């Protein structure tokens, strides 16, 4: 049984010439890790900005903790939004930024923050403007984790971080999440890396929600079928096709909502990773190669 912490109801956001969000509706459940996925410019950041009241919707309504967020200190006080593009004040050292954040959050864990500083080897006495891209990201990661905000958004928090540092972030997020459950929204391109982490997926493309489902359900959602063209064509008929590649007499298609058929000896079935599913679904949406109806 879970309860809604944040929701968008038919939110549309229009800038003068772009529609960043187009009638977006989704809900985020309490104490879960959500993956907000999509390409660059899909509208992910805009969605998070509207939920944290940094931006306002053109129409529709956003709510967090059951209330409108805009200038609503009571609910905003329970949020933390780590943006990839966030600049810290020029003359602040990293430790100034962390101290400032510690004053804002009642549940700030100083010891945890110190440990993270040490593990990520963050030079806390260096001015923020002199931090490398990765160190800049580390500052955000530490704030996002140590703040223990009941609703925490990470918008591509890993820029400039190497694979080891990213894994450290995922490990800490998961470990701390287990001890201090809260609602986390992770917006990322590195879907393979986080696919074990996220429990719910919201995929946005061109301002529209393509997927809003449990990660578990999605893992078995699609399969690739490989085999002789004719057999594959016969098997694929009537199913939603997300992708197709042909090499000589062999065909490989990605199908949605299909169970492998054991009676087909010519065909090879493989599960599709979350990343593949997201990529194919997005491509299908862009190309509109097939029928409009995506993933029923």
């Amino acid at each position: 049984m879970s309860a809604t912490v944040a929701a968008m109801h038919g939110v549309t956001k229009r800038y003068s010439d772009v529609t960043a969000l187009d009638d977006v509706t989704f809900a985020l459940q309490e104490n879960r890790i959500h993956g907000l996925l999509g390409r660059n410019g899909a509208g992910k950041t805009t969605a998070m900005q509207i939920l944290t009241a940094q931006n306002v919707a053109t129409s529709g309504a956003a709510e967090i903790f059951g209330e409108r967020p805009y200038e609503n200190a009571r609910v905003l006080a329970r949020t933390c939004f780590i943006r990839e593009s966030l600049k810290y004040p020029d003359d602040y050292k990293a430790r100034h930024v962390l101290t400032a954040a510690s004053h804002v959050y009642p549940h700030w864990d100083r010891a945890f923050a110190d440990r993270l500083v040490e593990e990520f080897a963050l030079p806390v006495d260096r001015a923020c403007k002199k931090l490398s891209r990765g160190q800049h990201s580390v500052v955000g990661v530490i704030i996002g984790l140590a703040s223990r905000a009941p609703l925490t958004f990470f918008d591509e928090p890993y820029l400039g971080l190497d694979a080891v540092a990213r894994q450290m972030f995922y490990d800490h997020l998961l470990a701390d999440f287990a001890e201090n459950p809260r609602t986390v929204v992770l917006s990322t391109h590195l879907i393979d890396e986080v696919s074990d982490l996220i429990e719910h997926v919201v995929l946005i493309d061109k301002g529209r929600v393509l997927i809003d489902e449990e990660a578990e359900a999605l893992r078995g959602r699609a399969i690739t079928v490989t085999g002789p063209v004719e057999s594959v064509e016969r098997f694929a008929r009537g199913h939603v096709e997300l992708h197709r590649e042909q090499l000589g007499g062999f065909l490989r298609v990605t199908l949605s909502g299909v169970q492998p058929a054991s009676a087909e000896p010519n065909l090879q079935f493989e599960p599709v990773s979350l990343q593949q599913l997201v990529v194919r679904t997005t491509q299908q949406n862009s190309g509109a190669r097939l029928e409009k109806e995506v993933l029923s």
Partner: protein
Amino acid sequence: MTAATVHPDPDTAFSSTDRVLAAARLSTVALRSRLGGAWVILTAIFVVHQAIWWVIRANVGAEETGYTGALASFYFIVASTSLAVMTQVMPFALSLGITRRHFYIGTSLLVAAETLFSAVVLTLLLQIERWTGGWGLGVQFFEMGFMGQPNLFLQVLAYWVPLMTISFLFLAIGAVFRRWGQTGVWAVCIGLLVVVAAIVMYLTWQNAWLSFGRFFVETPTILLLAGYPLILAALSVAGGYLVLRRAQP
């Protein structure tokens, strides 16, 4: 899925005072480099200023008390740190879930407190200047010819109000930048220019320059320094808030 919605935890008492305080503390963490920076620059200006006067005195000999408006630069140096708070700290504050309102109140209170501190220090320095007969050179740096007030309380006010007013004005300009970017700041500058030009034209047209000048001579300096500027300060705070309320970082 259920229709249940999580509401703010009633147990965690929420206090606006805490939020305003937290907002102000976002800017106090690096207080030493910010406020200290302004005072270091002022010290440098003072040293150069006195060195030049020392040369003048050495060349020309002692004449009547000398003064310049060099101290005025301090007002704008302090105010520019307010501008930086608005342009740089505000987006950070919003990321941490602080509202625009709380940020603006916290920052304004901080600016008021900081400028009061500076005013007290300036008042002390003015006393030293008087005791030492203008730093032994007959030179007024902190008095600037007209700053002197009959008592210490009015003296602090005479330094504080203009310092605070200019800082509030810069905060408001920072708010304009946060809302409309550089274009907005240019528009405000052009707007102010038009207003000043209109006043100049009006005074010229009405042949009112004499009474305009007389107003400044006849009005007690404490009213000019600590009275009328309060109107501008109030307008800046109110206007800045209205602008920032809809700003998106």
